[in-house]
């Protein structure tokens, strides 16, 4: 069971993920949690229920705190978390900044879910092998 948090200001992202991961959710492989702003995400991570989250998928362009800033804080405070950046912007500057702040993957929108699933599972395997 893997708990994923998705951070994106577009609320439609929730039905999209729920449908795309329907089978995995049904089979209990993945649990998804959605935050619609970076501030919310940080607030949630401070709560006790957030302890089991292992992966965060975050957009970059969001009102208020942007995804890169969130990434920087996450990698400082929660170094154990895996963070994938998922954004419509694939310019060099943002890409470099994301790598500098320690993003584990940088994926572009429109999201290719087959690719995303492959990345998630390969990463969860990595995490498991590290734990073992």
């Amino acid at each position: 069971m893997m708990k994923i948090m998705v951070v994106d200001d577009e609320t439609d992202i929730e039905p999209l993920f729920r449908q795309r991961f329907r089978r995995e959710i049904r089979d209990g492989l993945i649990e998804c949690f959605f935050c619609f702003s970076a501030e919310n995400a940080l607030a949630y991570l401070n709560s006790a229920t957030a302890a089991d989250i292992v992966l965060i998928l975050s957009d970059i362009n969001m009102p208020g705190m942007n995804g890169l800033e969130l990434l920087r804080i996450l990698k400082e405070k929660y170094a154990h978390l895996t963070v994938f950046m998922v954004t419509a912007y694939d310019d060099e500057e943002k890409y470099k900044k994301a790598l500098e702040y320690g993003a584990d993957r940088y994926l572009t929108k429109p999201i290719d879910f087959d690719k995303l699933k492959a990345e998630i599972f390969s990463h969860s395997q990595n995490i498991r092998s590290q734990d073992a």
Partner: protein
Amino acid sequence: MKKKLNQRGLTTKLILYIFSSIAIVFATIFTVNYKLSEKMLRKNIEESARNLNQSIVNRVEIVLASVEKIPRNLAVLVENGQYSPERLKDVIRLLVKNNPEIYGITIAFEPYAFVKSERYFAPYYFKSGDEIKFTWLGRDTYDYFTLDWYLIPKELGKAHGREPYYDEGGGNIIMSTFSVPIYKTIGSQRQFIGIVTADMSLEWLQKIVNSIKVLKTGYGYTITSTGSFITHPMPEIIMNETIFSIAEERGYPSLREIGREQIQGKSGFKKPDYKSLQGGKPSWISYSPISLNGWSLGIVYPLEELLSDVRRLTTFMLILGLGGLIFIGFMIAMISDSITKPLRRLAKASKELAAGNFDIELPHIESNDEIGRLNQSFIAMQSALRETINKLKDANEALEDYSRTLEEKVELRTHELSEKNKELDASFRNVKILSDIGQKITSTLNMDMIFNTVYENVNTLLDATTFLIMIYNDKDQQLECRLAIKKSERLPLYIQPMSDKNKLGVWCAEHREPIFMNDVKHESSKYVTFEARSATDETIASLIYLPLIVEQRLIGVISVQSFKKNAYTQYHFDILQNLATYTAIALDNAFAYEAINRANKELKEAQAQLVQSEKMASLGQLTAGIAHEIKNPLNFVNNFSELSIDLTRELTEEIDRFQDKFDPKMMDYFHEVLGDLEHNVRKINEHGKRADSIVKGMLLHSRGKPGEMQKTDINNLVQEYMNLAYHGFRAQDSTFNVKLETNYDATLGPINIVPQNLSRVFLNIINNACYSVHEKKKERGEKFAPVVAVSTKDLGDKVEVIIRDNGKGIPQDIIDKVFNPFFTTKPTGKGTGLGLSMSYDIVVQEHKGELKVTSAPDEYAEFCITIPKNLA
């Protein structure tokens, strides 16, 4: 009178400087030499004094030892032998007789020890004059048992020498007594039986010591262990004085010190603070002990005499040095005299010269040194002076002559001047006119106005039947006639190449010199061999050509011509010359103004282009922003539509499973609706993906990041971007149409390029091609069929892409500028001027390829791109 040093003569200075320095050197050498030799000498003296002392002491000790041996041996004889009294007396007498140092000997026995009946037994032989006398010692008045010479050795149990004494009776001899005890072994006991005593004369000691002669007044002395003098050259102190009593008496503490050391048995070499007893001079004393009996020998060295050699040597050197100094002084005086003598003579002569006596006989100096040369220069100066004075005299006479005629001349000149003045008044009016003209023409920047003003004024001032202004064109090497007026009519303008040497205008421009002729027929051959003129031309008889020059730059040529002979005077020439100057300046200003206007216009255009490209750049950023924002909705469209396709399929499968529960008609309806639904959603997904690829394309062009090399199919890339360019154009202008011809080399495999950059190159060039044919189409209308042809070709290690259009082509004069940044022929706002320049960078720098253009105006333009296959 005391002179200061620098006022004295050379001789004095030389002697003073050289003499005093040498004297200082000499004095130093003397002092050092004296000190060193004195030190050395003292060391030597000390050494030799020690040696002398030692040898004397040795001699004394040898004698002393041999003398003392006699009583010792006698004592041994008595101890060991049996002698009768007679025999004993004989032995004693013989010993006294044979030893000159011995004055007398006795053997004094203990009471009854030798002869049992005799209390006293002491036979005594002694010298008296040349005789040897005998007496018995010992009676009641001379009870020798209690005397020192007997008692002391007896008590001491060893030999003893008595302090010397002065025997006044025996011829002033110092005597010493040496006593040796005699023992006899009786049984096992050693028993004292008597004393052997020898009286010794110390005459020998006196002789030895008095024989010491050191230099003139040095001498030796001997003292006993109590300090009494035994020997001394002054007999009155012998045995009367001690060294201490003398020291005390005369107040010499150091002598006391020496005495103390002497009686302590020490040796040394010291300088006492006293004057020696004999001679009264400062002396040194060397002393050493006579160890046998504790006496001490002293030798006195008179200091003066010791150092006399050194003093003598020093004195000799001093005399030698002084002699040398006097000699040097003499030599210096000689040399300086030889220098100053001619100088004094020269000085005297120059004083004479200064007083005006130029004919004075100068001294003749033979030598070739500096003074000789000075003299020669002086002689040369004298002759030059004499010459100059003579010339001055001549000039003065000439001046006097001249001043007499001057008055007459002045009168004549005054007359002439008043005539000239009248002429000046007349010309002043013309000058006024000229200056007005000058002001008028130089204040305008319009070329035609300048020409007209000049012509009008020339006409009023002089005969200008024909008037020409030609402008010199440096670039094309020609004279361009901008104004030609003949009999008040403008003639058509013409050009004279500078190579045409038979034109007067060309001559004037080339030489930058005026031509002034009042009889052209006869004078023109000076300038040109043949001046071509039209047959109908009336003959020009007089003319002036003037070059127009500003700051040494040739502006052009101005000319007036007349049919009359002698039409122009010098005055006219001057006026025209003035006018030419103004005209040249005015024209130069006008040219400069034109150039500035032109530059200004170009600047404004460049500025407009820059503003435009800046707009384009910000538009690019805007496009990028929009494109990204579109991607977000596209994300949902694509993903939800994909999901919906799956859902539709699932639903269809579910319905199929329960088909027996539905009416077949209903099933058909379901299938139809679901089929349409799936089809629609699929279309949504398909178009969503298309929109995504369009957005991607837009982003490629707005982004400037360095691309990555990718294996790419060139044919596909060219085709894709040809379509994009075509559709882009169609979207802007629906009337646009073009025939696209493609000829791809099918054998071409994928090659390593940066697709997003190279695609921009294709897009740019195809876009330009479309633009060019479209423009031509708009001009030509229906009869023109626009074609854009694209072909690719495998050249082995390279790939060639040719893009050709049959549009307007590129004019020859700008074809080498098309790759310059910001160069564009499109109207402002339509092109940035960066397309081809960027393409050039991408092909040549990034891909190490070539980009070439060929064109024929109004026929075609062809861009040929070659890219090497093996790019890293």
